[in-house]
């Protein structure tokens, strides 16, 4: 018996050892697979976040340059003879005076050695075509400066701006150089004398669109966006809240309400271009509303964000516990009184959060606005919701389509402005949620 036991025990022990060995190896493999899986998971998160980082870094690094603008310091003599106004000082004459002439005269005074026509043209090309605008504004503000001489920083041309910022080359002989040797010498002289500097780009926030990158500003688009969003808010907040209240508090459970619900869920997923087609066919062609107007843009955006607001509103109403309703009704309030006096105030922070997020989404919407003609090139700042206007994202699109190198920087700057507005709205929503969130 014992012999037999020993005979069988030895292989059994060996077998057991072999088995533990196999198990250990398999376990090691399984654990390695576990670690691999985990690493892949982290990798996915990291890659996604890295995309975000690249995107933001790219836009920021490209766009921050546009906050500064190259200018040239010149002594401008406000000579009425050059301005071609004689003794007239009325508003029309001042507006129509020859400010470009002033700029050219100042440039000629700075470089008296420049004589030939061709040279002068090259010299004046260093300055922006719109450099005289600042002079016009100064004279209109205070006509008494006519006849005096002032040192003034004038906007440089986009090419010079790009070269100073190091985006385009400025060494003699470099590939893609946009300056002649004479121009390079003048630039060097200006720089050596401290008359060439980068200053804060006020035009970016105070001017409308322009074909010249150094003159283009965002104010028109910002105002256009504000008008559009104002219209959107006026339309979709009341309608959204009313619909949410009706569906959540009053609607009987029947086919009709089911239809509305399904409809709202599907509307939320309709591509936004289709809303643009709707706006084109109904608002522009049937109702005859003006093209490119923030009014129509606001209407279309309202239809786009309505489902979001309704869905958020219903969620906010659902979060108010039934005990509140029962208590109000128990004290004799009517159903409508219960809703308006008790449920709605408690749900309002949630509804506002949803509305702000919906608005933020509407602010970034581009495609449907292209359909209703908001892609026109518009220089003037819109004065009302019926004036033609661009909005911020459309301005981004327009600028990104412009071939001039200076617009790359401008586009990124416009995106930064857009993202700043979006983050402010999102922060407001988060703040509202944090401040008023209640756990029942």
């Amino acid at each position, binding site marked *: 018996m014992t012999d037999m036991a020993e005979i069988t025990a030895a292989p059994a022990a060996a077998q057991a050892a072999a088995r533990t060995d196999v198990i250990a190896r398999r376990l090691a493999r*399984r654990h390695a*697979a*576990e670690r*691999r*899986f*985990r690493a*892949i*998971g*982290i990798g*996915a*998160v990291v*890659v*996604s976040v890295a*995309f*975000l980082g*690249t*995107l933001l870094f*790219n*836009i920021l690094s*490209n766009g921050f340059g546009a906050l500064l603008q190259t200018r040239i310091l010149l002594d401008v003599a406000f000579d009425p003879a050059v301005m071609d106004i004689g003794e007239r000082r009325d508003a029309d004459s001042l507006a129509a005076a020859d400010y470009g002439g002033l700029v050219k005269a100042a440039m000629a005074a700075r470089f008296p050695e420049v004589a030939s026509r061709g040279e002068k043209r090259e010299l004046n090309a260093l300055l922006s075509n719109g450099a005289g605008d600042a002079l016009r504004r100064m004279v209109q503000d205070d006509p008494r400066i006519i006849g005096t001489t002032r040192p003034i920083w004038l906007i440089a041309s986009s090419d010079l701006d790009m070269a100073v910022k190091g985006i385009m080359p400025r060494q003699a002989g470099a590939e893609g150089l946009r300056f002649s040797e004479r121009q390079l010498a003048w630039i060097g002289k200006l720089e050596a004398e401290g008359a060439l500097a980068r200053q804060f780009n006020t035009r970016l926030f105070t001017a409308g669109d322009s074909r010249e990158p150094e003159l283009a500003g965002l104010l028109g688009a910002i105002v256009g966006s504000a008008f559009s969003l104002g219209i959107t808010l006026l339309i979709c907040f*009341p309608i959204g809240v009313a*619909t949410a*209240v*009706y*569906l959540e508090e*009053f609607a009987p459970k029947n086919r009709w309400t089911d239809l*509305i619900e399904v*409809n709202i*869920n*599907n509307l939320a*997923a*309709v*591509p*936004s*271009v*289709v809303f643009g*087609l*709707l706006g*084109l*066919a*109904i608002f522009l062609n049937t109702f005859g509303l003006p093209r490119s107007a923030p009014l129509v843009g606001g209407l279309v955006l309202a239809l786009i964000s*309505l489902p979001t607001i309704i869905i958020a509103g219903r969620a906010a109403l659902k979060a108010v516990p039934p005990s509140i309703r029962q208590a109000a009704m128990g004290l004799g309030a*009517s*159903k*409508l009184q219960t809703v308006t006096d008790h449920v709605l105030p408690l749900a309002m922070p949630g509804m506002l959060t949803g509305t702000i997020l919906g608005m933020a*989404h509407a602010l*970034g*919407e*581009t*495609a449907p606005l*292209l*359909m209703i003609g908001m892609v026109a090139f518009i220089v003037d700042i819109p004065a009302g919701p019926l004036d033609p206007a661009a909005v911020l*994202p459309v301005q*981004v*699109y327009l600028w*990104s389509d412009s071939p001039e190198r200076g617009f790359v920087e401008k*586009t*990124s700057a416009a*995106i930064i402005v*857009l993202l700043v507005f979006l983050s402010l709205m999102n922060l407001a929503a988060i703040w509202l949620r944090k401040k008023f969130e209640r756990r029942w």
Partner: protein
Amino acid sequence: MPTILLTLVLLGLASAAYHLGRGKALSVSADGAPLHSLPRYHGYYVALWCGLPALALLVAWTVLEPQALRALMIAALPPELRGLSSQHLSLVVNEVRNVALHGAQPSSAAVAEAARHYTALSATGSWLLTALCAALAVAGLSWGRSRIHADARMRNAVERVVGVALVACSTVAILTTIGIVLSLIFESLLFFEHVPLHAFLFGTEWSPQMAIRADQVGSSGAFGAVPLFAGTLLISAIALAVAVPLGLLSAIYMSEYAQPRFRAVAKPLLEILAGIPTVVYGFFAVLTISPFLRAVGARLGLGIEAESALAAGLVMGIMIIPFVSSLSDDVINAVPQSLREGALGLGATRSETVIQVVIPAALPGIIGGVLLAASRAIGETMIVVMAAGMAANLTANPFAAVTTVTVQIVTLLVGDQEFDSPKTLAAFALGLVLFCVTLALNIVALHIVNKYREKYD
């Protein structure tokens, strides 16, 4: 704008009416009679009577006035003008309107006379409107006020009006859908009068440039949409190939492995990707991704075009990562804990639990999420408009430029104001296809998701 001014005046009147009504109710109750409704409801009642009819008149007037003015003006035109064909007549009408409203130069004495008549008519009209509105408002006010007595059921009346208003608001969503469907179908039908349906759906050549003159060569206009559908599918497939693995794996890591602190940071970061406007992604694709891909392609000896399906699809994929990840996150979290505990208790490692238990259980939900993401990708516009190009190539090569349904909708309509050429109408036909496909995808996806939810709830 007199309409806006009038509206403001009416609103002011209504608020005055509220105070009058409330005051009268208070004085009635001060006389000792207990009121059925609270005083404010009496106020609302009077305000509604004062404001609603007048505002309704104002709206109706604003809608109908142009038609009425036109008819009146035509009736007053000299007979030789009135007898013109309808097209010529509308030209005359436009001219009269331009003369009257914008001070344009009239081309004939008759037009000048008609313009004077028009100006006089619209001036009379606006006086009439103001007078009528004021009369209605005052009449409504006094009628409403006269109805105030102690047991008038004002609350019930006001609540009925509010109820009707709520229902009216909730039909806006329905009206929007009807508007979308009708406008798409209407214009598409016009399009299919020019181009047969099968040529549109199955034709393989897309060149929507119509000949302006009959003898022009090479611009007969071909509306075969297959290259567009193929381009859309190619770009969406690339986008999903990027977004589904990244989004799904991120969701798995976040819900199954990550510490709460990591989750609290990483999840909002991913959601930021969903909040960035698409035009920004488009610019990113053009500025960064395309040149990068070209450089890489040149290294590897692949000819990647400046506008390639790959660049557009890649960036679109980045955009929909959070979409996939948050939907998958939801369904993975909805898998009951007992399933995980069962698997872990049998000795499975975490990854084995995820791959063999959690994912199969969550699969319908994940598929639903992927379908929703696909419908997002198909309907996405700005990225492809900026990065994918206009060339309607029928190719499966991701390095070539392709065009999509949305790109063509935008390019066909931007800048073109004529509304009867097949070129513009084609955009609506494409829109109809887009609407139907995304709608179908959504319905299927929501159906799958809901069905799956019922299983565990």
